[in-house]
């Protein structure tokens, strides 16, 4: 029996939830009734409550290092108890814990889908999501070894996660993990959804039913997800606004100054170039 977990790995605000919505519709075959608060791939791999329940210890009584030491076994328990392939959303960078063991163990991994989005657009979306300035958002994406949810004294609903800089994050999964990784560009999810989501389903080793996938893509259209969020709320939304805000490619053009663009492109030049976000020194939102 092949290992069951397919990691849906991404830096935040890169299209992870959109993929989860498509998968939810595709796998459950209830295309017009996507429950945002019960999406495939969730709860996220860093969900504190899941850790506490599977571990038996209260993560609020543990150090960050201890949490990381216990995390791999959490996914082993999940893998042992769930049938067949399943997707699991994760925003952590791929990394090893203090004992040198991968947080996301190869033994339970069927594969990984790494979702990448132009960091110029990520910066804008992340700023809105966290209610921070564009400058602060750029600082986060550019910061080496950047962590989120790391406040001990105010444990959030998620465990502390290392994101690293945006480039570190990409490389950690794509280059360093040694896992079978399928890279999916957010821009391709827009430009060529059928082919792109086909690769997501195939990452689980599943054959794709083209008609069913087409239905799923239609029912997970961004405007539909916005409607669902307006009508029923979304537990992952920020306190001050909507989760599904614009969902567009290239919205950075209206929001970022040339200095902003230089700050991002300067820090992430090589990874941006590698994934088609820079051409002739000029960052592009799409190919």
């Amino acid at each position: 029996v092949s290992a069951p977990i397919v990691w849906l790995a991404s830096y935040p605000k890169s299209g992870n939830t959109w993929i989860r919505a498509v998968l939810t519709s595709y796998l459950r075959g209830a295309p017009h009734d996507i429950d945002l608060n019960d999406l495939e791939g969730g709860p996220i791999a860093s969900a504190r409550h899941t850790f506490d329940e599977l571990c038996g210890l209260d993560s609020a009584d543990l150090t960050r290092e201890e949490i990381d030491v216990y995390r791999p076994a959490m996914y082993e328990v999940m893998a042992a108890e769930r049938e067949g392939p399943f997707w699991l959303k994760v925003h952590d960078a791929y990394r090893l814990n203090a004992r040198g063991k991968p947080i996301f163990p190869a033994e339970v991994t069927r594969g990984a889908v790494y979702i990448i989005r132009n960091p110029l657009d990520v910066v804008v979306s992340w700023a809105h999501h966290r209610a921070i300035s564009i400058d602060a958002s750029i600082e986060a994406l550019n910061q080496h070894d950047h962590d989120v949810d790391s406040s001990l004294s105010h444990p959030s609903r998620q465990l502390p996660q290392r994101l690293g800089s945006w480039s570190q994050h990409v490389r950690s999964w794509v280059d360093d993990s040694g896992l079978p990784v399928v890279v999916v560009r957010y821009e391709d999810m827009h430009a060529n959804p059928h082919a792109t989501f086909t690769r997501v389903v195939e990452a689980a080793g599943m054959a794709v039913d083209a008609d069913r996938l087409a239905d799923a893509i239609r029912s997970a259209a961004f405007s539909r997800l916005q409607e669902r969020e307006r009508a029923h709320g979304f537990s992952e939304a920020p306190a001050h606004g909507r989760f599904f805000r614009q969902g567009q490619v290239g919205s950075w053009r209206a929001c970022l100054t040339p200095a902003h663009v230089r700050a991002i492109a300067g820090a992430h030049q090589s990874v941006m170039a590698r994934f088609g976000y820079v051409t002739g020194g000029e960052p592009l939102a799409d190919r």
Partner: protein
Amino acid sequence: VPSARPDVTVKYGAVPERLERASNRGTRFEAATTDFLLSVDGVGRYRVENGNTITIEREAQASEQETRLFLFGTTWSALLHQRGILPLHAAAVESRSGAVLFAGRSGSGKSTLLAALVSRGFRIIADDIVGLTVDDGGRPIVHPGFPGIKLWADAAARLGYDPSTLQRVRPQLQKYYVHGPSAGSTPLPLEAVYVLQPEPRPGIAFEALAGASAFDAINNETRVARVVKGLPMQVRHLTTTAAVVNRARVTAVRRPVGAFTLDELVARVERELQ
């Protein structure tokens, strides 16, 4: 009725690394109906048997505080499970007609709320783990637990405590015990449960829950529920949860994630309890 023979024995001794016949497992524990094993790296192993015996094999480097922390946390919850007492993740204070619980996940603010209520004169029944049973008349009963409140340094300071004078729960954590007047050792009838639910929306909202939503809200706060999953004790817990829903007020308290709303929350709760 006080008795000369203690209900529970806690002792140091040898604890195996694995249980031979465990039906339920988590990352750090194994359990059967009357046997439970917890392993905390760097601290020790804890075994709970027959609802009355706890054996601790402590690692050499473990501090006394942390040995106690994991004894009175997960291990104690397992003991309550074995004894047919429902362990809820909650804080409890004495009210006019019994006990009031504030249930919620880690980070939901229940300990901070408890400490704030203590500073307003409420007496503590328990922090973190509250044991519930049902009496012969079908009333839910709250059992006294450990009256020490666990607070992070900033919350303690905000409530007027000087962290440097407080005892840490673990040497590695800036988390401290704060003590207050205890409501005593007599079990009390449950009057109300407030389930603290941090939510991504502004403002504090109290919503009375009934039926299935009340049941789920309580059920979700069961401490280490996996320990009894599929075992006979799970059925008893469902009966206890049903008694809570039928005989006590269950209220969801929704408040914004991360925002500081303690004063408003305390004022609302005090009004509710008058």
